[in-house]
């Protein structure tokens, strides 16, 4: 497809890797913020093709993974009610709550429906006036315009049997929280391309300046990531710390103003709890007072719910990059994509699921690093590794 295949061109990929090796003189630690980027990096073995000492830490940008356990339990409590049709993006259904998950609840008879867009949830509300229809409004800045539009439309059209369980998080405050942490190792960020497509990158400029970290707005294809890594390392090597845009074909400095306007018409910024990280001030959206009647938490009185994580799961340390799935005793044993203990194993964007589907640390499923052919100059045999995710489909 146009604009897509070109960004997967293996010859250009190898050129980029060669250039990264050429300019790198020291060890550097980079973080890709977004789970979609993590997926590409791990699947293509990009991290393993980098110079020795250049390390990619996989960031917290997976909405499924950072949605706090409390919100999942609240969702479960609401979805279990007989008068409720609970709607959600599909990847939230298998996220384990304290005792069960939405999919298991559905199997036991609860009316839980997967929707592609929040507008589909609105349609369900219109079609079922005798039911309460609740939409699980999760995600980063990318889903916020859509979720805000659904609430604004419900208000405009007087669809009063519709409400939203909000768990919206924002990227820049999470980056600041990581940088402020005494354990921080991140020296440069690849910012999430689609978050920046909506919001632009002006918010990142003060962060780059204050913490002296290069930030490169980066896309999701293999060449995007390699070029983003190259741009970040070039800045580090030259002692610069600016915001640069690798993803120029999709991202403008000011973002998409109409989308931002819609977000801030419906939402305001407030503190949010992040699964595995804890509460971060001013790190999420909540409904503004004039839309408070669409808040499912107050409509169904689920504010007071307590939670407990599985003791073996180290999701928090994985989300902050302190540990990798290979450090986890449950990875691949107690915990796998069919039976996940923690959120990073649930979503395809989660670090654990990305490692698992690439066969990392699973008893020699991949004895030959998929990245190695990238660095060989001699002609290579087709070395496509078995892709468990695709095979499973």
């Amino acid at each position: 497809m146009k604009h897509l295949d070109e960004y997967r061109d293996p010859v250009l990929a190898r050129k980029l890797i060669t250039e990264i090796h050429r300019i790198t003189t020291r060890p550097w630690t980079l973080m890709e913020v977004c789970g979609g980027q993590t997926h590409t990096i791990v699947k293509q073995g990009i991290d393993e093709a980098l110079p020795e000492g250049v390390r990619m830490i996989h960031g917290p940008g997976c909405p499924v993974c950072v949605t706090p356990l409390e919100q999942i339990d609240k969702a479960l409590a609401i979805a279990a009610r007989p008068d409720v049709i609970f709607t959600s993006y599909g990847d939230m259904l298998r996220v384990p709550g304290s005792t069960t998950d939405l999919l298991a609840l559905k199997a036991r008879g609860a009316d839980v429906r997967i929707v592609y867009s929040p507008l589909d949830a609105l349609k369900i509300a219109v079609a079922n006036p005798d039911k309460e229809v609740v939409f699980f409004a999760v995600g980063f800045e990318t889903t916020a315009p859509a979720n805000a539009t659904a609430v604004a439309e419900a208000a405009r059209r007087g669809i009063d049997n519709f409400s939203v369980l909000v768990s919206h998080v924002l990227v820049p405050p999470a980056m600041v929280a990581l940088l402020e942490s005494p354990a921080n190792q991140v020296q440069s960020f690849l910012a999430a391309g689609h978050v920046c497509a909506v919001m632009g990158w002006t918010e990142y400029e003060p962060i780059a300046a204050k913490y002296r970290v290069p930030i490169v707005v980066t896309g999701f294809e293999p060449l995007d990531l390699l070029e983003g890594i190259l741009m970040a390392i070039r800045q580090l090597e030259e002692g610069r710390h600016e915001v640069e845009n690798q993803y120029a074909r999709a991202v403008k400095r000011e973002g998409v103003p109409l989308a931002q306007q819609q977000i801030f018409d419906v939402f305001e910024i407030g503190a949010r709890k992040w699964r595995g990280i804890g509460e971060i001030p001013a790190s999420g959206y909540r409904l503004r007072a004039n839309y408070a009647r669409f808040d499912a938490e107050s409509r169904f009185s689920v504010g007071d719910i307590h939670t407990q994580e599985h003791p073996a799961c180290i999701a928090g340390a994985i989300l902050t990059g302190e540990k990798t799935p290979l450090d986890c005793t449950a990875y691949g044993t107690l915990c796998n994509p069919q039976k996940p203990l923690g959120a990073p194993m649930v979503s395809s964007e989660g670090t654990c699921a990305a490692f698992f589907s690439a066969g990392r640390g699973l008893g020699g499923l991949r004895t030959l690093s998929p990245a190695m052919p990238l660095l060989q100059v001699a002609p290579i045999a087709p070395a496509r590794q078995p892709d468990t995710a695709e095979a499973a489909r």
Partner: protein
Amino acid sequence: MGKVDFGGVRKDACLAYIPEVQLGDYVIIHVGFAISRVDEDEALKTLEILAQMGDLVQTELATMGPGMDAPAVVSDDDEPVSGVFATPATGAPGGRA
């Protein structure tokens, strides 16, 4: 609302946030909403820069596979989406559900 073509699969998408979008444009769709119009000039410029950078290696690679987010093309259901036979989209860009 408008129609978008995800490499053969056609779906409705809200185009309200990027009213400047034209029939045949590539857009990035997130949960049913267009959040960005793909700028062809910029896409080509990036590729040109990459193509000029070094020329050490000519070997083909077999390891690259599909990534995550696929751009989709704005279209309507039955008509050609670009070229001389193209007609305007049935859903006016910028309209709402």
